[in-house]
């Protein structure tokens, strides 16, 4: 650990009089394995490292901020990044709200996010796992005609942050992933089903689950047809619900709110969802895949309750958006690695679980649609206007049970209206890779478009 912290400290020591400097230093080890037809299709492995430097200069009218990054940890390259960030700062617009984070007294959670089995497991064993999943999928069901990919990946990530404003943080984490795709059926009636498992380490991966999901999700779609249009209750499965929740939480960003880009702006204290919705972002829950002790500015991550019994309580903030809004940072800065600047984001969104599991929720629906996957989320959901329209595949629900499969259809509403139409939050909470937990979710009265 110490070499990354030392490197961050060295950058910060290069600050000139009148400058504030922050260094974010990251290093990762990655392994990716793909199995196909009983062979390793590809195996890659690498160590990457880089630094992101922010320089802030105070002056007339506020502070100016410059940023530079480099995909290297070599001293001369890192020095260049500092110089470049300094030069960039000279061109920025002075802004009284700009500032680097300062320690706020909140103690970071003690989280053990490092599983030594990621490093200790031999590559051959990782390869064997991918090959095993491929073999099992091919033998699982006669209707599975192809297994286009089985992927194993793992990572070890270390991050050090230091600043002239007193920030000093080091954290490390591991992750292991297993994903498989299976194709059932022939010709136009071909359907892909995927299975995924994510864990802190190699030992935590759930092979059974990956295989069962890939098989069930592909085979149950056989014979799918385009449904008639109409208004339906939609039951989102855990994975679809996690995607939906991540979109909603994007609109809970204080940055989007202060810049007038969120449909939640100005609605604190109002009933924005049904009473069954209590939503928090809690990166201190070690089970969450993106759990973290520190945010991307080096402040302690904390549990932030955002919607309680349907009432909007507040938003997530990083240092700058908090200053714009006149509040304190909620420790919610995120960044996309060393090449990105901090922005506001959630890491571990979760709904307080309800009473019913999937079966119970389905049983409560006379006629509806069970969605197992969505496409076009990035093109069909507008987090500013709230307009929501996505392609779906899944199964109709009839008499409280899963019925015939459907495809080539969309469901549409607005996010605002969907929140006001949540019927049930599942008790089946599962942490998935991504920023939101998976929980079955039932939403009333959405428009299904098909024939």
């Amino acid at each position: 650990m110490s070499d990354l912290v030392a490197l961050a400290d060295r950058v910060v020591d290069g600050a000139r009089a009148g400058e504030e400097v922050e260094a974010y230093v990251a290093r990762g080890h990655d392994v990716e394995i793909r199995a196909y037809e009983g062979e390793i299709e590809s195996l890659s492995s690498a160590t990457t490292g880089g630094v992101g430097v922010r320089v802030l200069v105070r002056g007339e009218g506020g502070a100016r901020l410059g940023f530079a990054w480099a995909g290297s940890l070599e001293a001369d390259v890192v020095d260049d990044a500092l110089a470049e960030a300094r030069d960039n700062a000279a061109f920025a617009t002075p802004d009284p709200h700009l500032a680097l984070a300062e320690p706020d007294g909140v103690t970071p959670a003690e989280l053990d996010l490092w599983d030594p089995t990621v490093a200790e497991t031999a590559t051959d064993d990782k390869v064997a796992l991918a090959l095993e999943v491929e073999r099992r999928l091919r033998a699982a069901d006669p209707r599975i005609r192809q297994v286009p990919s089985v992927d194993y990946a793992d990572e070890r990530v270390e991050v050090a942050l230091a600043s002239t404003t007193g920030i000093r943080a080091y954290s490390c984490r591991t992750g292991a992933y297993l994903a498989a795709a299976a194709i059932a059926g022939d010709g136009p009636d071909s359907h892909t089903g995927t299975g995924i498992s994510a864990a802190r380490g190699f030992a935590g991966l759930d092979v059974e689950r990956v295989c069962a999901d890939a098989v069930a999700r592909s085979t149950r779609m056989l014979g799918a047809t385009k449904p008639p249009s109409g208004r339906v209750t939609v039951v989102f499965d855990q994975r679809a619900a996690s995607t939906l929740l991540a979109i909603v939480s994007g609109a809970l960003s204080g940055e989007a709110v202060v810049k007038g880009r969120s449909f939640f702006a100005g609605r604190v204290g109002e009933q924005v969802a049904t009473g069954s919705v209590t939503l928090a972002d809690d990166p201190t829950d070690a089970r969450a895949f993106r759990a973290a002790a520190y945010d991307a500015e080096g402040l302690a991550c904390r549990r932030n309750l955002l919607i309680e019994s349907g009432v909007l309580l507040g938003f997530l903030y990083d240092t700058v958006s908090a200053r714009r809004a006149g509040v304190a940072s909620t420790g919610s800065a995120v960044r996309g690695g060393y090449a990105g600047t901090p922005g506001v984001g959630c890491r571990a969104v979760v709904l307080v679980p309800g009473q019913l599991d999937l079966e119970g929720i389905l049983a409560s629906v006379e006629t509806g649609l069970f969605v197992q996957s969505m496409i076009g989320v990035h093109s069909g959901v507008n987090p500013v206007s709230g307009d929501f329209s996505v392609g779906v595949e899944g199964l109709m629900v009839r008499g409280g049970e899963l019925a015939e499969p459907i495809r080539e259809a969309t469901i549409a509403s607005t996010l605002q209206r969907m929140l006001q139409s949540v019927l049930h939050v599942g008790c089946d909470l599962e942490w998935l890779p991504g920023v939101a937990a998976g929980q079955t979710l039932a939403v009333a009265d959405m428009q299904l478009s098909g024939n």
Partner: protein
Amino acid sequence: MASSPLIDPDVLERVLASALRRGGDMAEVFAEDRRSSSAVLDDRRVEELASGRERGAGVRVVDGDTTGYAHTADLSQAGLLAAAEVAAAVARAGGGGTRTVALGPVASAGDRSLVDPAAVDKGRKLELLARADDAARAAGGAITQVQVSYGDSRRRVLVATTDGVHVEDDQVRTRLSVSCVATGDTGMQTGYESVARTEGFEVFDRVAVADLAQVAANRALRKLSARPAPSGELPVVLAGGSGGFLFHEACGHGLEADHIVKDASVYTGRVGEQVASPLVTLVDDGTVAGEWGNFAFDDEGRPAARNVLIQDGVLTDYLWDWLRARKEGRTSSGNGRRQSYQHLPMVRMTNTFLLAGTEDPEELVAQTPRGVYIAKLGGGQVNTATGDFVFGTSEAYLIEDGRITAPLRDANVIGNGPDILRRIDAVATDFAMMPGTCGKDGQSVPVGCGQATLRVTGITIGGTAT
């Protein structure tokens, strides 16, 4: 901009020879030195002026059907040899031993940019942002937020293989985009427009950023009075240059040979068949100078090429990279691309477009009694196994009695690729391209899309209005 090679030829030869020490059919070194700069103006302030540098190399070893890959940011001989050692670990067939590799002189595309953005004063880039912000806000009092984003990059690439490939490319890209929010009685609406070119700063001699900003702002303003999009199947007229993504999603991905060889595409085994309306001639062309998906050499060192995929509705060929082409005993079509040296190459589109037809675009609308006119598409996504695909609308209108009428709120449109390609019943003359970013397997690459105004006789609109 003459510059020294990223890696000396004698070092390349030693690394390539070492990579095949344990056996294998082919070894490759891909090196990249990418400098980029970006600036974002948001909420009337230049918030983020950033510069970045990424430099490194990946070593690939192919042994039968197995590929080993390792990458490093260390371009020294020691660093490259270490990567070669890791990549070579997958070779199990034996047959290695001492190899010598002799590379010929490097084939270079040279520099095609007139004005290297890195040499342009940062102040001039910021002027563009301010001009766009002013123009967007001047478009109407209901414009409540404007974000202008500028970016440029210069990517020097070197590829050398044991098959004798030894090329360099120098790719300069410049982009600017404007996102607006308009606020009215019915809530907020958004508008977006961008220019993105594989060329230098000279792009702004031709493109007026104020016009671009106005287009984005008007898009948001018009939608303030938009009604919900219809739900169900209707005829759709796509404006020229609005929706090349239709083809990118409806069939482009399904024609990528990695899906084809795994029988994971609805287009597998269909070369020679009529897969589309006779009005459809679809081309993928990496050579179109300046377009967003343009380059001289792909990321496996193969020259960019013009490939006809569908001719008069008949499927003529797929898109190929080195690995998949080798399996079929043919040559790559110049479609092996990767996001960076940290990624394996795979089959990707470049600039994919439908050749223009003969109809008058206005006539096409006039001949459509009822339907939807899509002036601008958002992104899309496809399931290649079923061919089902979606794309989003970001500016659309109702067509009533052959006239473009009420603006519509954003929605996704869903169709099945092979089905929709057969339902194209008119293609106009007003061809135009547009830039986009294509994501596949976690890698993003710049692509171009293009088409003239065209009509699809029926496609499902995923709105809420019945």
